[in-house]
């Protein structure tokens, strides 16, 4: 059963959407879960959060940014090509109930996994306040889809090219300081952003949830590569998470562990670019 790419789209520069034919996974997928994929025989296994799923069509949508060798190679595949291995749905589903008012924060490519949660929280009867941010206006993802499922949508750009000039945390802080009763905050994005959101919500004592993007190999609890410290307890992001209480997560350790293979990642990417661009090194 080949995991064929049914749709591929470059949403904004370097960020891609792919619909993968995976009916067995689509049947069970829930917001908050992820897949692990391996492009080909020599490929590595990488986790990607499920951005959407269609049980009828039997597809899983994933959105990824081409940053290293594997994601760049993935971005060169076309509609009709197939991925060798596609495993999921992994991790625990997001906890979605009618909480009252929830703030959903998506930063960069993190807007993709925030979307199905925003939709689910809306469907569960919550008032959904969404904040999506990007470095620049041209890198902003899924504004229209987010607007559809949000009661209020705020946009931030680091360079001020669209709406609020600054960070997503500025808006989170403004909402909390305005006295709006917020029952839950969910933030998905780069670790620095998630750490900053946790820092902003902590003094207000608002339950804050983040989705951790640790390095993984099997994704089933077998290797422990993804271990994170939550409330001083070691947890495996793959089976205990990926979502955790942001106020308990040791983000410094998370970031240190994410940098573990930086030299190797750089080497692999450079070699890949060399081969692709036909240099003689």
């Amino acid at each position: 059963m080949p995991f064929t790419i049914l749709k591929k789209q470059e949403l904004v520069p370097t960020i891609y959407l792919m619909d993968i034919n995976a009916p067995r996974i689509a049947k069970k997928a829930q917001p908050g879960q992820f897949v692990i994929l391996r492009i080909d025989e020599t490929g590595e296994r990488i986790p990607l959060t499920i951005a959407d799923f269609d049980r009828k069509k039997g597809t899983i949508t994933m959105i990824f940014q081409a940053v290293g060798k594997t994601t760049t190679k993935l971005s060169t595949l076309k509609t009709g090509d197939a991925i060798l291995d596609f495993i999921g749905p992994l991790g625990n589903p997001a906890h979605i109930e009618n909480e009252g008012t929830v703030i959903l924060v998506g930063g960069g490519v993190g807007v993709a996994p925030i979307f199905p949660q925003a939709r689910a929280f809306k469907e569960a009867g919550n008032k959904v306040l969404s904040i999506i941010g990007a470095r620049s206006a041209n890198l902003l993802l899924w504004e229209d889809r987010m607007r559809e499922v949000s009661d209020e949508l705020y946009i931030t750009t680091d360079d001020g090219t669209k709406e609020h000039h600054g960070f997503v945390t500025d808006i989170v802080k403004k909402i909390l300081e305005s006295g709006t009763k917020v029952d839950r905050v969910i933030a998905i994005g780069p670790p620095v952003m998630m750490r900053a959101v946790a820092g902003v919500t902590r003094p207000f004592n608002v339950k804050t949830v983040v989705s951790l993007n640790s390095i993984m190999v099997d994704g089933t609890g077998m290797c422990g590569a993804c271990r994170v410290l939550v409330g001083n307890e070691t947890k495996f992001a793959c089976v205990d998470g990926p979502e955790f209480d942001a106020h308990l997560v040791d983000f410094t350790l998370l970031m240190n562990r994410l940098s573990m293979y930086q030299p190797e990642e750089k080497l692999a990417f450079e070699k890949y670019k060399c081969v692709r661009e036909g240099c003689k090194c």
Partner: protein
Amino acid sequence: MLARQKMPQQDPKIRRANFKEVALGFSNEQAVEEAKRCLQCKKPKCVEGCPVEVKIPDFIKHVANGDFDSAIKEIKTVNALPAVCGRVCPQETQCEASCILKKKGEPVSIGRLERFVSDIELAKGVEKPQKPKPTGKKVAIVGSGPAGLTAAADLARMGHSVTIFEALHASGGVLTYGIPEFRLPKTIVNAEVEYVKKLGVTILLDSVIGKIETVDDLLLDFDAVFLGTGAGLPVFMNIDGENLNGVYSANEFLTRVNLMKSYRFPEYDTPVRKGKRVIVVGGGNVAMDSARCALRLGADEVTIVYRRGEEEMPARAEEIEHAKEEGIQFRLLTNPVRIHGDARNWVTHIECINMYLCEPDGSGRCKPMPLAGSEHKIEADVVIIAIGTSPNPLVPRTTSGLEMSKHGTVVAKENGETTKKGVYAGGDAVTGAATVISAMGAGKIAARAIDDYLKTK
């Protein structure tokens, strides 16, 4: 008495830098000579020592007669994975331990003969096995490790339709992700898996049961389910510094090296940290495998740190011997108390304490106790924790009515029957981490029980 044939092997100085198989296998002449040593006992003790009941004297007699085809046929009536068993079984504590020759000298090299005839067959191309009359009954097997493959092979031979669900992208379970290439080449594992497929077994890879489907889901489509989910959860020591960069569970280290082939990085994409000074904590086969992999990745010094003495090491004697020949250092009666790192979260050294042994504990081995004031530091840039594994809770957590022990193992009777109707289990999932062959034995026993159960359905 004829002397036991010596196994030809790669020179330790050469093999410590490559991932090719260490033991090279008997020549035809050696195999026949070795087989002639067998006394052909009327009441063979060796068979009693074999968890899958291979008729050892019968197959050895064929080897002695130079009839290698009949030898492998004899083994394969009960054992679907002989090339694996011949390499990784702890023969010295099983079949060979009960060999009468051992009383006067050295036992017959049963394992090496098993390997020899399997390799001869694999080189020639395996004969397509005959398929029995279908019973119309369907069995799902969770996990394609030694227990699952054995149960699958036996159930297929009984005429049942068998589907294996494997979580990883390759079959074989621990044979693939755990045991390194130089001890068990993956071409051998793949060949054995191909044989099981030829028996009619379907293998669905990339299928994490408990996620993509639960056992309860499977029972809607299948008449019975066998859980051979193994003991894949790494155990850590719960000491300071275990989350430092450069500290691995043996599972992660071996999975990267074996399953993901990171020893061939960057040709293969998965990286692994190549340490210069590597410490492996533990005394089992997994510890030996990790140490020898680290050495082959280019370490200057690899040290095994083990809290008991050599006598108490659970690893196969041959593995310890091979590790020593290759230059692995052993620091026995030593236990880590803390792992230290630098500002960038990278491991720099481990702090250990010396141990002494006192009265035997519940495991029958002497309990190690720390020697106060003996704390010392050992430099390390990679630390691998190989102190054991426990069963993965993914399946039990998502299965209704399946009783678990407090150790996280599936509660099952001798025949593999669990507390859930139609669900059987065997191997490390039931016993906790043990050997390949005991898992195969459990798979075999469960297959019989499942067959009996299906007859009543």
